[in-house]
């Protein structure tokens, strides 16, 4: 309550000096006053007293409401930090050209859907299933693209995810993507559970300098890392050792996996070879990320002028009703006047002698 009062502001505070005028109805009444010989003649009546008070309050309300409305009241916008169940999820999506292909490695035709379309469909369901999850969406191909910063506006996140099946292009530069995906977390309390969801269908070599920077970022933020590897049928798995030399260049997926394992953070990799596998992986992530999360709620500035006018309207309606309900003794006199006359001219006096 006190807090709500503190956030109450007006555009023209000078006008509030007029507020004492609202006390005028206590002194003067708008009703037509009926002079009577003795006010005690009327019996005491609770309902009348209550109506009298309501009319008086209506007067005060209409004055106060109008003055408030003229001064332009509003409630300041604010950011409220609350705690809910959920996680900060930074979704990092591969937008390289290969994502346009199906899981079979072909261009989609007919009822087939591309990897991008499948992940779009499944991620969209993931977003918004819990009210207090926060998402950031980053896409990357050769360069990373910030799509949506960390937000709890699920509509925006869904819209961002809906856009990821646009045809991708170029190659996979996973190091810069990861850096941007991590930078999305921003400052938050240490209790926040964070998850970095990497959706990609391939990997690339991370050069050692970038590796150090990433390692530092991972150590600082300690997110849960999920790698949703959309594996094209026939391509090497994460765990497959290449036949030849075991270098990052030869088996980038395997070495990325090794790199992730070496980070000493909770890490899981899901290898999905079809849409169902992707769904299963996402359901698993959803189950894992259940921690209390402080989330911020933005409350916009709210204009209270309408409310003030509404209040004064209520007061004015009371006053108008009271005015319409007014009775007038003088009108009554005019109505009963002709009937009173014959009564007064009574029969002749019977005795006049003194």
């Amino acid at each position, binding site marked *: 309550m006190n807090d709500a009062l503190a956030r109450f502001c007006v555009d023209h505070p000078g006008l509030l000096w007029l507020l004492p005028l609202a006390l005028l109805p206590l002194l003067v009444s708008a009703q037509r006053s009926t002079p009577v010989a003795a006010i005690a003649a009327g019996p005491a009546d609770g309902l009348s007293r209550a*109506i009298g008070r309501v*009319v008086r309050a209506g007067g005060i309300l209409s004055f106060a409401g109008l003055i408030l409305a003229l001064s332009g009241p509003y409630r300041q916008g604010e950011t409220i930090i609350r705690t809910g169940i959920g996680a900060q999820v930074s979704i990092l999506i591969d937008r390289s050209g290969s994502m346009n292909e199906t899981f079979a490695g072909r261009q989609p035709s007919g009822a087939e859907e591309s990897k991008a379309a499948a992940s779009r469909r499944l991620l969209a369901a993931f977003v918004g299933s819990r009210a207090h999850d926060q998402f950031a969406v980053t896409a990357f191909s050769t360069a990373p693209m910030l799509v949506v910063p960390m937000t709890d506006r699920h509509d925006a996140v869904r819209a961002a995810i809906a856009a990821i099946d646009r045809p991708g292009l170029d190659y996979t530069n996973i190091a810069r993507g990861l850096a941007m995906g991590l930078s999305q977390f921003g400052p938050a309390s240490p209790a926040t559970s964070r998850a970095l969801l990497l959706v990609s269908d391939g990997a690339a070599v991370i050069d050692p300098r970038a590796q150090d920077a990433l390692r530092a970022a991972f150590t600082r933020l300690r997110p849960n890392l999920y790698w949703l590897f959309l594996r094209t049928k026939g391509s090497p798995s994460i765990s497959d050792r290449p036949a030849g030399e075991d270098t990052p260049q030869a088996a980038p997926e395997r070495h990325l996996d090794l790199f992730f394992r070496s980070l000493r953070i909770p890490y899981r990799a899901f290898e999905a070879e079809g849409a169902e596998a992707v769904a299963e992986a996402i359901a698993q992530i959803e189950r894992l990320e259940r921690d209390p999360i402080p989330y911020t709620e933005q409350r916009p500035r709210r204009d209270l002028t309408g409310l003030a006018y509404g209040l004064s309207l209520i007061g004015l309606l009371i006053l108008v009703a009271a005015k319409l309900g007014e009775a007038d003794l003088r009108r009554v006199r005019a109505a009963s006047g002709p009937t009173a006359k014959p009564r007064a001219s009574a029969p002749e006096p019977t005795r006049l002698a003194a």
Partner: protein
Amino acid sequence: MTDAAQPDIVYRPRGRLPGTRLGAHRGRDAGGLGTFRDQVPFLRMPDARRIDVRATLRDPFEGTFVRRFEARTLVEVWALFDLTASMRFSGEADRIGLASELCVALAASATRIGDAFGLIGCDETVREEAFLPASRARGRASDVARRLAATPCTGRRADGMVQAARRLVGPPKMVFLISDFRWPEALITRVFSSLSRHDLVPVVLGDAAEAEGLPEWGLLELDDLEGAGRRVVFMRPALRRRWIARETERAETLRRIATAHGRPPFRLAGRFDPDAVSRHLLGS
């Protein structure tokens, strides 16, 4: 003087009045002229001019009888006029106008038959500007009219009525107490008992707008003329019934007190009718 077309108010004081000056009312003393009253033995009233020969001859004990005649005397008529602010009430009729009319008519009627008329206006005290000593002068009625027109009703209490009673010394008088009697019951009793020596005629100024004429429905903001504040009243049939019952009860209380001290009150409401006043005065 009042309008010639308006009939006089006819009044008859209660009982027989003392006094030696010749007037229009029955006196307590036996006098030489007037209507026959009784016969008394000569020794009780040794007036040889009025020996009743017939009664004297008829008496087997040979007593001598004298006729006695009723003396006609004067009575002073006073009007005690309530000058509190509540008299400014104007409903079906203008209350102060109605009361003034009655007062002027009383003055005219009294002076026409030779009685003296006096006026005392009171609020918290006796208002000297509204005080007229009893006089038989012919122009009294217009004096009264002038005085009442010049005196504003501003008082808030009617305690002056008790003081006014102290000015009415001497033989019993005919006193018209003109007010709306919106007083505390204790004051009514005090005023009535202090005036009970006189022939007291309470005149209650009523108004239909205060009881029967109240609206069935509606919002009234009552403003007390005597400054007792304002009050919103939501009129509805139930409240109207209660209100009228209260007014009736008040009138009944006043009637009870007034009857104990003399005559029942006369209710003056709506229109001033001298004949109605006469009927009331002769009937009671």
